[in-house]
């Protein structure tokens, strides 16, 4: 029997980026907010020491910062004809756990989606016609425009102290920036990071081919920075332990380095760690969320009533908790009916290695979002006529730091082990770089999330089941990006190149990206979406679902900038409208 606790104004489920953003905004509005996080309390001074952050074995290979799959994982299959099996080791994506979520071990790649990314269906239909957007491609327009989100992108970039160079200031293209980006109202808060040798070689080669290289926008502070909340970030040291690690230098933006020092001082905010929400509770008519039930580490159950429930966990956990709570109609890929679990999407990556004989590239210098990119082939920045796909991605060199256990690229023909392999690594380690492509994935009818019929977690609840594969659209797009990357690789003038195309079905084993999206998407009407444009549930108006869960399909960019912008956009609507008329829909169905 669950112990019933006193009610709070708002309860947040999960305490990563979106939870911290929403808690900060709602406490500012005077609300009494409780966040429930199933992982540990983690903070920079006590947990992220630069004296041992560089422990590759501990953090990456032994997954210290990641979700424990022995407690909870998901099952995986490529299509409905297969039996899904549990993912027993993290591979293709690295789920976070604990305070700050995956925003602790992210790279700090802060992008804005293109204006046309947010109109993916209508834009592509209009430009390329039905043949490019077949019925099985279940993409939709976002119910928000780039202009709607611009102030919130800006707010997040200033919160994080993003280092970069604007390419489009109020419609005027800026030299040195990304000319394809949507117009921004002001420059980035910090100048770009210093560019290492390999990315600068990429920039020169790309420019020689008529492309438009620019420094990657980075939530790795290029200088000491105090954000609008008064929180201090230290300058990045280019230590190379950013991606998949926590930052001990206060340089990588995370909830810990941008919000928590202010939020944790507020008496109206409470955080419960090591407490896992079992379900969202509903009123008998199913139209009101009455709170949540959670279990603590001792196995004691508590019922936490709340006026408002905000689901702010990772997208996969958000979808699963909706399904476990019986909220919304589960998606059925056969009939196309139902919403929850629909339009799960991902991203597709590939790479091209460049080997030099004469250039020492010092690849161990690194930061999460340190590099030079081109967006010439992202979204609809190029004419797709005759290419037979839509969408795209960025291409560039992201020098995150060649960590020694993880980094051993070899040229074509080198054996995978033994003396010859060792000699090749020793010869090439400092003289090798890699161009990456990072492409979006559209939504397809057969890609979805539901509850697994067989496997259960440590608490006895069904695991989430992921049914996903790349479509022809994605393979054609990724191959096209890889070809473009190879052209630049050749122009860089190395000894040889090796193009690594993404072939065959999606494989859960090699790391690709932790950019899972969809499953409770936002839209214009309850017929085709779970939430309205303010991330408010159509069915349960005092329930808000944050995160990439809302993306109708993915774009070619990293999602965190858009995830944060959508959270701020929702927070503003809650503060300005919802709190004046609680439990009422912000958009009429």
């Amino acid at each position: 029997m669950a112990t019933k606790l006193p009610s709070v104004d708002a309860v947040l489920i999960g305490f990563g980026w979106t939870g911290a953003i929403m808690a900060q905004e709602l406490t500012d509005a005077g609300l009494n907010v409780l966040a429930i996080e199933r992982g540990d309390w983690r903070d920079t001074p006590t947990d992220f020491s630069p004296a041992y952050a560089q422990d590759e074995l501990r953090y990456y290979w032994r997954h210290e910062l990641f979700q424990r799959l022995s407690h909870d994982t998901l099952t995986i299959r490529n299509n409905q004809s297969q039996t899904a099996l549990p993912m027993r080791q993290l591979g293709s994506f690295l789920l976070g756990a604990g305070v700050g979520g995956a925003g602790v071990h992210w790279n700090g790649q802060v992008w804005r989606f293109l204006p046309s990314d947010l109109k993916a269906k209508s834009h592509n239909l209009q430009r390329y016609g039905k043949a490019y957007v077949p019925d099985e491609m279940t993409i939709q327009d976002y119910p928000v425009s780039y202009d709607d989100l611009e102030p919130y992108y800006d707010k997040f970039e200033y919160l994080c102290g993003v280092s970069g160079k604007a390419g489009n200031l109020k419609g005027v293209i800026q030299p040195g920036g990304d000319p394809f980006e949507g117009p921004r109202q002001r420059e980035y808060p910090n100048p770009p990071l210093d560019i290492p040798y390999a990315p600068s070689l990429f920039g020169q080669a790309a420019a020689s081919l008529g492309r438009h290289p620019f420094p990657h926008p980075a939530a790795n502070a290029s200088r000491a920075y105090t954000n609008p909340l008064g929180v201090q970030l230290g300058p990045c040291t280019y230590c190379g332990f950013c991606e998949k690690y926590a930052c001990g230098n206060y340089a990588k933006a995370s909830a810990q380095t941008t919000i928590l020092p202010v939020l944790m001082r507020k008496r109206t905010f409470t955080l419960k760690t090591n407490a896992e929400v079992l379900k969202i509770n509903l009123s008998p008519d199913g139209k009101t969320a009455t709170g949540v039930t959670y279990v603590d580490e001792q196995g004691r159950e508590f019922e936490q009533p709340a006026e408002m429930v905000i689901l702010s966990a990772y997208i996969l956990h958000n979808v699963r908790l909706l399904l476990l709570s019986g909220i919304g109609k589960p998606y059925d890929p056969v009939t196309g009916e139902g919403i929850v679990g629909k339009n799960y999407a991902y991203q597709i990556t590939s790479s091209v290695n460049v080997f030099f004989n004469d250039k020492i590239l010092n690849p161990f210098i690194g930061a999460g979002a340190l590099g030079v990119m081109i967006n010439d082939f992202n979204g609809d920045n190029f004419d797709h006529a005759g290419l037979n796909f839509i969408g795209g991605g960025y291409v560039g060199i992201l020098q995150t730091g060649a960590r020694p256990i993880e980094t051993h690229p070899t040229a074509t023909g080198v054996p995978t082990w033994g003396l010859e392999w060792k000699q090749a690594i020793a010869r090439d380690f400092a003289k090798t770089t890699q161009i990456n492509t990072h492409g979006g994935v559209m939504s397809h009818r057969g890609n979805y999330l539901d509850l697994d019929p067989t496997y259960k977690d440590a608490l006895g609840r069904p695991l989430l089941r992921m049914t996903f594969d790349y479509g022809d659209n994605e393979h054609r797009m990724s191959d096209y990006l890889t070809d473009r990357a190879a052209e630049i690789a050749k122009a860089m003038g190395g000894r040889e190149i090796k193009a690594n195309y993404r072939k065959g079905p999606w494989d859960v084993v090699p790391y690709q990206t932790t950019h899972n999206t969809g499953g409770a998407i936002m839209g214009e009407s309850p017929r085709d979406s779970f939430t309205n444009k303010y991330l408010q549930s159509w069915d349960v108006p005092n329930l808000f679902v944050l995160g990439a869960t809302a993306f109708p399909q993915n774009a070619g960019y990293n999602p965190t900038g858009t995830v944060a912008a959508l959270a701020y956009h929702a927070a503003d609507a809650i503060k300005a409208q919802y709190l004046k008329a609680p439990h009422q829909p912000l958009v009429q169905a």
Partner: protein
Amino acid sequence: MRLRARAAAAVLAAGVALLLAARQAPVFAEVVAPAAPVAPATAKATPAVPESPQVAQGRYLAVVGDCEGCHDRPGGAPYAGGLPLATPFGTIYSVNLTQDRETGLGAWSADDFWNAMHNGVRRDGAKLYPAFPYPYFTHITRAESDALYAYFRTLPAVSYRPPANKLPFPLNLRFMVGFWNALNFKPDNAPTTGPNPGQHIVEGLGHCGACHTPKTFLGGDKNGHALEGGKLDNWLAPALNSDQRRGLGAWSTADVAEYLKTGRNARANASASMADVIRYSTSQMADADLAAVGDYLRGHPTHAAAVGDVRVDPKVMQAGQAIYVDECATCHAADGKAQPGYFPPLPGAAVTQSTNPTNVIRFILSGTQTVATDAKPTPLSMPSFGWKLDDAQVAAVATYVRNSWGNVAPPVSPSDVAKLRRKVGKPIQKPSAKV
């Protein structure tokens, strides 16, 4: 007797020990009990009814006196006492200042309160231990005492009796304090706010000398050495005077005020015991008072001998520099200039140049955390290196930062490090040659 040896430092040391344990056996890191986020104790509830000017003055004076610094215990009601104060002579528990008649000050008159503040005598006539800093409080005026009394009258009664003091015979006999007073204490016959408000705060309610003045073997202030730096709880409370290298001589008044208000400035970050002083007291003081304190302290004369010739072994400097580049330069920069206001610069800093090297050794061994304030909430920190550097390495890098970039200070020996390490943390585990 040392007056302000504080539990906070012990908690810090325990935290570091935990960190060390987690580090040495990474597998245990995930089962270490989570450090519950602690709400800061700074924000004061504003009174519902407007308070009288006298009560408002008393509320402010209680901040200036850092009363909560000693009279709050973790988890206890404000001013209810019970914080253990570890003195070299034993443990003394702070008393309950709330209005409970049995366990607090509820039965006290304004005269009783004045007698305690001015003469160090309890309501029942017994002598107070000088862990309660009446040798400083004796300088406050009767009007100030009455204002404090009026404020304490507004504190809700909390029934709580702190544990009995743990003092060895014969110190457990309160009349022994009489002998101590005869040697170390002279009541101020004519307390006045005086022409120098900074001096009045520093020497009176602020009781800065309780930590920052060197002590005699009896724990009394060393005559003629006020504010030249004291030791407490295996830290050095640095000199607060015009000394250019070891004191505040190079600081501006605004530097001092900013440090006391925000917990950091372009020259130094506050941590350890000073963190509590800033949290409970100076971060909430009026800007004008902080400037007055700054004016007074940085002009305060020093009698310490000038730094003479310092001879440093070049091999030690070379080893120290190598360690510095590997471990320290990412935050403090190769030239030591660091990121002023974020990570403190080392050239010219008192922490590097104090004759007594305790703090620089301890920061390297244990790490530290800058106090978070409303103005500067980020808990910027330095990690512990005690687990990865041995005594000779710590000594070398400490010697290097004490004698680079224009700094001059006596070298640190490995035995200095070993001595402090025994007191504040585990000795480094040397890998066995047989394994």
